[in-house]
């Protein structure tokens, strides 16, 4: 029985048992249940498909190669929500109590992340928001169940500015420069504005903001303005159909692509391939390297696709696919840490929280899990759910993404105080006490 069939069979049995009620019969063997909210349909499906495939393939490989994590089979169940927040919440409620309880959720959607913040706190289930979600969620005392596990949007913005500084020979040279911030005009896009404003004050560059109306398929006005303003650099906070359109429009106004830097949701094959030649030279941030040369990806090819399983071979090695794999590797490391501490195979979601807070994703661990050189080293703590975190800049050469920078660390001295302030506000409005870490 292949994993997919097994998963679907389990799903079928569960649903047959109770179409509108969640709890399902418990499994006798040790299992780890990882429900996955996916969007393989709808307007954001181009980004959702590789993301979903990466996660599903990784656990299929672990089950096939190792027979699970330390012998505990991993059950992955997909729940399609089509990037629709209401359905995302429904999926969460549908799956959270199945198979002895869900261990962790990773919605890959800002809206669902917000909507689940309260629920996961009540239900005591970690919420992994690697590279998205609230910027202040890295403060573990305010958000004990949310794990950004990477630097957030604010850190990313400071890092991108740092990179621009490096390109022109030092941050001091930013003084008479102009940076245009092109962002999707929704909650996600707006996250970067306050920190960019702080940076602009600190380093003396001129910041020009260009909001793009959701969903970003019509951007003419924005680019006419940019053409006139002649910025030195463009930083983009885009998602979905907006990215390829922006890259094309930038090429039309003959803006040099190498000075156009997207954030890590604006730099995938799905954004550059449709833009064609216009995208050559375009850069973006990333915290996970693309490519198929990493041992973990090779193992997926051997153990999943090599045996005729798997869900999308054309996605393997793509930016979003590898990012999803890397996210699962962090979860894997968290599970291992928790298993070691509590001495059980089938850990609970609360134990996984401890595992994620105490894992050490260093060179040795990365080597062990086959992701050496693929992502950042992190070591989160109970207070700090980010745990370091660095990223790099990649560039599109017309065929693939290549890493073109050293590892960049965000300017934490700017980011941390802002995060703390925002988190305190959140606690006050919610009427909550900070979680204890002692």
């Amino acid at each position, binding site marked *: 029985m292949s994993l997919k069939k097994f998963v*679907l069979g389990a799903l*079928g049995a569960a649903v047959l048992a109770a179409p509108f009620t969640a709890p399902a019969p418990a499994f006798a063997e040790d299992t780890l249940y990882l429900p996955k909210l996916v969007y393989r349909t709808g307007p954001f499906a181009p980004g959702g498909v590789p993301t979903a495939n990466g996660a599903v393939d990784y656990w299929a490989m672990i089950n096939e190669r190792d027979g699970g994590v330390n012998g505990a089979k991993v059950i992955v169940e997909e729940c399609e929500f089509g990037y629709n927040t209401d*359905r995302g*919440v429904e999926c969460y409620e549908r799956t*959270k*109590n199945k198979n002895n309880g869900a261990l962790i959720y990773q919605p890959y959607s800002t809206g669902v992340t917000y909507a689940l*913040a309260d629920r996961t706190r009540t239900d005591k289930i970690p919420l992994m928001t690697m590279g998205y979600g609230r910027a202040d969620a890295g403060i573990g005392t305010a958000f004990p169940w949310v794990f950004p596990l990477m630097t957030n949007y604010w850190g990313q913005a400071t890092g991108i500015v740092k990179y621009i500084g490096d390109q022109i020979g030092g941050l001091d040279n930013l003084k008479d420069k102009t940076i245009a911030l092109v962002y999707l005009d929704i909650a996600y896009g707006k996250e970067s504005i306050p920190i960019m404003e702080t940076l602009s004050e600190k380093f003396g560059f001129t910041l020009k903001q260009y909001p793009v109306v959701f969903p970003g398929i019509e951007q003419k006005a924005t680019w006419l303005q940019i053409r006139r303003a002649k910025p030195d650099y463009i930083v983009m906070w885009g998602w979905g159909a907006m990215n390829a359109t922006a890259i094309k429009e930038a090429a039309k106004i003959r803006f040099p692509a190498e000075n156009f830097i997207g954030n890590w949701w604006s730099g995938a094959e799905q954004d550059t391939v449709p833009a064609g030649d216009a995208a050559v030279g375009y850069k973006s941030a990333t915290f996970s390297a693309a490519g198929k040369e990493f041992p973990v990806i090779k193992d997926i090819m051997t153990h999943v696709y090599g045996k005729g399983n798997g869900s999308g071979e054309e996605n393997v090695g793509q930016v979003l696919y590898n990012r999803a794999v890397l996210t699962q590797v962090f979860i894997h490391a968290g599970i291992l840490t928790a298993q070691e501490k509590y001495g059980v195979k089938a850990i609970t979601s609360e134990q996984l929280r401890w595992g994620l807070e105490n894992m050490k994703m260093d060179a040795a661990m990365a080597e062990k899990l086959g992701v050496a050189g693929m992502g950042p080293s992190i070591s989160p703590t109970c207070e700090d759910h980010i745990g370091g975190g660095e990223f790099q800049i990649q560039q599109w050469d017309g065929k693939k993404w290549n890493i073109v920078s050293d590892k960049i660390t965000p300017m934490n001295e700017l980011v941390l105080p802002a995060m703390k302030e925002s988190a305190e506000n959140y606690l006050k409005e919610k009427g909550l006490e900070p979680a204890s870490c002692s």
Partner: protein
Amino acid sequence: MFYREAGQFKSSYKEDQAIFPILQDRIGMGIILLIAFVGIPLFTGDYFIGAIMTPFLILALAAIGLNILTGYAGQISLGTGGFMAVGAFAAYKFATFTFTFGGFEGTMPLVITILLSGVMAALVGIMFGIPSLRIKGFYLAVATLAAQFFIEWVFIKVGWFTNYSPSGVITAPPLIIMGYEFDTAAEKYLFTLTFVAILALAAKNLVRSHIGRGWMAIRDMDIAAEIIGFKPLQTKLSAFAVSSFFCGVAGALWAFVHLGTVEPEAFGINRSFAILFMVIIGGMGSILGSFIGAAFIMLLPIFLNNVPPMIGWNIGVDMVAHLEFMVFGVLIIFFLIVEPHGLARLWTIGKEKLRTWPFPY
């Protein structure tokens, strides 16, 4: 046999004009309320209560709101999402507002917060209702769409509404009434149900009153209504106000009870469309229809999504979603062909048949 009104004599106008003049209806309603208030919280799980019933009730409330405007007063609106957003953001502002009054410092009681947010939505609704005096039919949708997009934009742009949160997201405070916190799914459900039941009753009474008859007269032919003495200005704007009040309360409940943390996109154009669909498919000019329509539009896709795995059909989740879309589309068309006037009409027809059952003539 069971549904027979013979022998139930009305001896006063009051009895004759009761909401449920027939004994069986009163019993039926009592049973439904009993199930809703006692049965569901006692005998179903968190999933059914928290992910199905609570959002269903809130959307049904919004559908009642739109039904007042579109079904009873005949004004098409695609601004429902916008008015819900006004309710949600107003509730947030009221709830986070600390006032001092003669040495007493505190925040507004929750119920008043939610009702006041409905009042704010009503005011905004009146403002965007003014063009309805001149623009009619499908063209009126333009005014309400302007409202929809403008309101969404304002909440994204103006930091004051979100207390200057960097991402423009609002976080609802805990639901506390007189020191008691509503935090489990069942408690939140009961909280919502109480609101929805009372407001639905109010709506039912309102549409049977002088005001409601004015709305229907305007709907059926506005010039004729004007000639017999209904002032279009007051009648249309009151419909906008009452409708927006319901939508605003629904929006506040959506933010405070269902989601907790909300971004303006939760009240986007798709929400407006979905609620209009509920009203049309459920039955225009029917309070019951609003509930049935909400069930159809919200619950049917979830149910369809559960069917293929239920019957052991091993296909990918994307395929299931595509099938869900197709079957849903076909069912909409099917029900329109079977009963163009909405599902509520099917129930009315059913009642007629029930009256003579088992010996129809």
